[in-house]
């Protein structure tokens, strides 16, 4: 059995230059430790490997029940030069939410 990040958290993606940042915010603080253990930068890198060169850093924000993932070299050079449809990578949050994690129970 697995859960998706979607089941436990919400997310939003932002852009600065060629770097994407994606927040992952737990609905319930009790899942923060589980997300910290399972949603590692390595696991996120695996999900984004065909889109982003990285590196990927994860910043904890326990006060906000959240994490901030900062993914470099992720936006085709950045909004001003990118050939993508979604130049800002706004839809990246939905790829994050689709990542599967082992069942916490």
């Amino acid at each position, binding site marked *: 059995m697995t859960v998706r990040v979607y089941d436990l958290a919400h997310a939003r993606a932002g852009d600065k230059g*060629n770097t994407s940042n994606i927040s992952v915010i737990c609905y319930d603080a009790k899942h923060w430790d589980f997300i910290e253990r399972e949603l590692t930068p390595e696991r996120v890198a695996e999900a984004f490997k065909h889109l982003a060169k990285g590196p990927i850093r994860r*910043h904890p924000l326990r*006060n*906000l029940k959240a994490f*901030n993932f900062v993914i470099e070299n992720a936006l*085709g*050079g950045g909004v*001003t030069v990118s050939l993508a*449809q979604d130049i800002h990578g706004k839809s990246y949050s*939905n790829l994050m939410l689709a990542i599967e994690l082992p069942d916490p129970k």
Partner: protein
Amino acid sequence: METKETVRIGAGAGTSDDRMVPALELAERGDINYLVFECLAERTVSRENLARSKDPNLGYSPSLHARLRMVLPACMRNGIRIVSNMGAANPLGGARAARKEAADLGLGDVPVAVVLGDDVSSIVKHRPGLRLIENGEPLESILPAMISANAYLGADVVCEALNTGAPIVLSGRVADPSLFLAPMMHEFGWAYGDLPKIAQGTAAGHLLECTASVTGGCFGWPGKKDVPDLARNGFPFADVKADGSIVIGKTPGTGGRLDVMTCTEQLIYEIHDPTAYITPDCVLDITGVALTQESADRVRVEHARARPATDTYKVNVGYADGYIGEGEVSYGGIDAIERAKWAAEIVKERLKLQGFVYDDFRVDLIGMSSLHGELDKRPEPYEVRLRMAGRTRERKAAHAIGFEVRAMHMHGPGGAGGAIEPRVRDVLAVKSVLLPKNMVNAQVVVEGKL
């Protein structure tokens, strides 16, 4: 000046394309003291610089006319002061346009305080050795194609503009949160040394700078994160007290939702290291911030921290970087994906046969792989839209992409439909450098009689 106990600062725009009516709702029944319009994306100033080079009267945000025409009567009636970076590449021209709008509306001679000095192109031009933040190369590498160079000014000079008493303050490039922090500094006499207050004000500015992002925009998800009456979602404001206490609220009677979840998403938005969000005013740390629901649609913000500002301004350098060409066409039914992929190969080959060269090229199957790339385990859709895009030095090569994709109607696999006209756009790229603050001469001039 009489000090108000609570100052209410409304967010009237979070981008030049932002919706307009919610700003009017704030002005009419939001009981606000300030209305802030943030209208500059990264490349907007470059684009407006090009507009100004063709007509010296232009170069401010083209949305200035419609926005001011809409809100000025209510703002003047209710004593609401307007702060905006809609001056873009020509704040003085923007001020003249704003004054004309006011006069045309019968509001008389309305003075405008103008913030100048963000345009540092003549300064950086002589410093080709400055390093580009993005790739470490010297500025020299893009100088020949430079269109604009603008420093992100801070709240201090905007505060100075407010001190003149002018009902409208117009600037070019100013950091987004600084536009909101400035009225707080002006009203309460905060200085950069009052770090806990500057931190609170900067956090509030960051929460407000994308308007509807804290009121349910860019948030909703049916059955999971429902947003009531999203079609009529309102814009937010901050209630600020002299001690730095902050509550975020929204226009009464509007749709949307404002709660800890919406505010959390916006608080982390576009922040990298949450202990060091660098603005011209401070280095903000949000790792201690507490957000609490105070009542319906009201969220209290506490415990933002900050360290003193750095001694440099971030400067965005805009430069011409070739062209992007695009084409699209659709395939449906049996083997839609196979036909779209075949079409892409044919287009690529025809472009190659004509000798066109691209710095970057991309093939998207919209409905399959255009947003998140190729992934395993993905079901094939019934229909798919082929999109091809390339960046190149040559306008002709850019145009050829859309031309050849459109030609799939007659010269490609069977059953292609709905191609778009070939699309070509100039690339206005942006890179950044850091410039010592003491090299920048930020200043305020007033257009009209105070």
